[in-house]
């Protein structure tokens, strides 16, 4: 574990990403303290430029504080990214483990199913899902999870295929351990590192997906989100550039941080690969 931390710390990009990510997390947690006023509330004159009238990042067309919107939006971005990834990993690990462990026809059927979901254009599918099941936090999370599990299944299946025939698994079978116990107690812990790396990158793409959905007007109507703010600033970009610039910077920094952390994790968990790449 300490070895892992040292390898991670040697990667400058990864450490930078981690610091950035912690800052976004702190912003999300401190939003109610820093900006106690509801981000939907009118706080000042409309279209106040940044640094004027006491607004760090200006106000929007209805006089709402852009900085407050970004702080409160951090919460929803991280929440959606995290929960939808956990759900996608749960689906992906279950299907991938069964396919890789069982093999044969079951493997065939599951992989056909996975291929089908990879063929459908995922963004259009997510739009259709959210639109039909009416936009809300839970429908957005469900839609993102439904379009993002296939890569997890592929990775987990590959790991299970190669681990299944290893001696420690054979030993567990000979000892008479139950199949679920072998899958979750023996094989899965050995397949964790690629899942963790994939997971951190999936949180990043889930955040991008959420922002794209709310940009198109498919966000939860009760929650302030970064994508919604950019969408609202789109039509008045000639008048108030700050309305769309700053939320975009927030998305960029968060996603960048997650990608850097993901790459750092990947290098630290597979030191041999990292050295070869270097």
């Amino acid at each position, binding site marked *: 574990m300490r070895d892992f931390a040292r390898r991670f710390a040697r990667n400058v990009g990864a450490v930078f990403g981690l610091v950035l990510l912690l800052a976004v997390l702190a912003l999300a947690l401190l939003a109610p303290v820093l900006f106690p006023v509801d981000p939907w509330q009118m706080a000042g004159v409309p279209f106040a430029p940044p640094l004027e009238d006491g607004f760090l990042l200006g106000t929007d067309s209805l006089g709402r504080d852009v900085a407050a919107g970004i702080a409160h939006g951090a919460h929803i971005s991280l929440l959606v990214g995290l929960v939808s990834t956990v759900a996608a990993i749960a689906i992906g690990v279950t299907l991938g483990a069964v396919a890789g462990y069982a093999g044969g026809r079951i493997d065939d059927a599951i992989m056909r199913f996975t291929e089908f979901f990879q*063929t459908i*254009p995922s963004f259009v599918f997510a*739009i*259709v899902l959210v*639109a039909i*099941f009416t936009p809300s936090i839970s429908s957005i999370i469900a839609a993102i999870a439904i379009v993002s599990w296939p890569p997890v299944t592929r990775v987990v299946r590959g790991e299970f295929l190669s681990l299944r025939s290893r001696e420690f698994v054979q030993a567990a079978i000979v000892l008479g351990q139950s199949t679920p116990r072998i899958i979750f107690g023996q094989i899965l812990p050995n397949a964790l590192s690629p899942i963790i790396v994939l997971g951190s990158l999936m949180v990043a793409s889930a955040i991008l997906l959420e922002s794209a959905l709310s940009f198109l007007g498919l966000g939860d109507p009760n929650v302030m989100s970064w*994508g919604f703010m*950019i969408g609202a600033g789109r039509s008045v970009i000639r008048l108030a550039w700050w309305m769309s610039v700053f939320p975009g910077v927030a998305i*960029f920094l968060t996603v960048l941080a997650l990608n850097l952390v993901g790459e750092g994790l990947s290098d630290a968990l597979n030191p041999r690969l990292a050295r070869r790449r270097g």
Partner: protein
Amino acid sequence: MEPAALARFVFGRIAKAALVVLAIVVLNFVLIRLAPGDPASVIAGQSGAADPQFMEQLRRQFGLDRPLPEQLWIYVSRIVMLDLGVSHRQQRAVVDLLAERLPATLLLTGAAFVFAISMGILLGTLAARRVGTLADTLITILALACYATPLFWVGLMLVLLFSVLLDWLPAFGMTSVGANLTGFAVIVDIGRHLVLPALTLGLFYLAIYARLTRASMLEVADQDFVKTARAKGVPEGRILRAHVLRNALLPVITFAGIQAGQLIGGSILVETVFAWPGIGRLAFDALLARDYNLLLGVFFCTSVMVVAFNIVTDLLYALIDPRIEVAS
């Protein structure tokens, strides 16, 4: 490749694709049934407020009063006949709307794809040739930045820079309104409108292709046949072009073929930002109007396009690389 083997290969791929399309149709049907509320109101694109007589007519037309398997049969056979229903908001057949908008989307995605793949391979090659130098680092950072930027936001920022601040390029639409251009001037006009949307859509994929090319080139450059060529005294430029690049491009092309279909998904965002009159913009309008039948039509159309792209990629790949076993 022998003609008979090729024909078998193509036929097999088309049969598989037909199954996938059928599955998409069934998925569409399931989505309509799962939607909260009356399926007739989903088809009508109205929630609750519709005329009861009209809804009754729709129910009869789609056989919604009959058992589920029969409903599915009616739905599938309609779509096989290319009847995607009517957009009741726009009072027109969904197929006509899609056909009208498709060329604009194909132009946009095609331009973005060509831009992304050519620049991606160029930058990736450059980075691989100078591993560890400033150029390599810059290209890697650029790729990382493209990965992390939301597509629609890049579009807006390009509009802000090139249209609002510099006033070089038009920000919206596909043609200048009321300009009454003819001949060559029309092409120039469309080209000028195309630059920003194609750039926006292409940037993300450019990053992917650049990274792929870089990794793939470094892997090939390590192999024995490259060392042999170098030992024989083949000039460095020729090694790069004829030995390394040629072999390194195969995985890039495969991946690009698979991704080409996903470009259409991204075009929804780009067309929304730039008011580009393609099927993506149509999808956005359908969203605003809660016109689900039209939205499902767009979904079906884009899925079929992805499937078609995949067949073409498989075929090209089998033709380019003789090592690929067509039979398998």
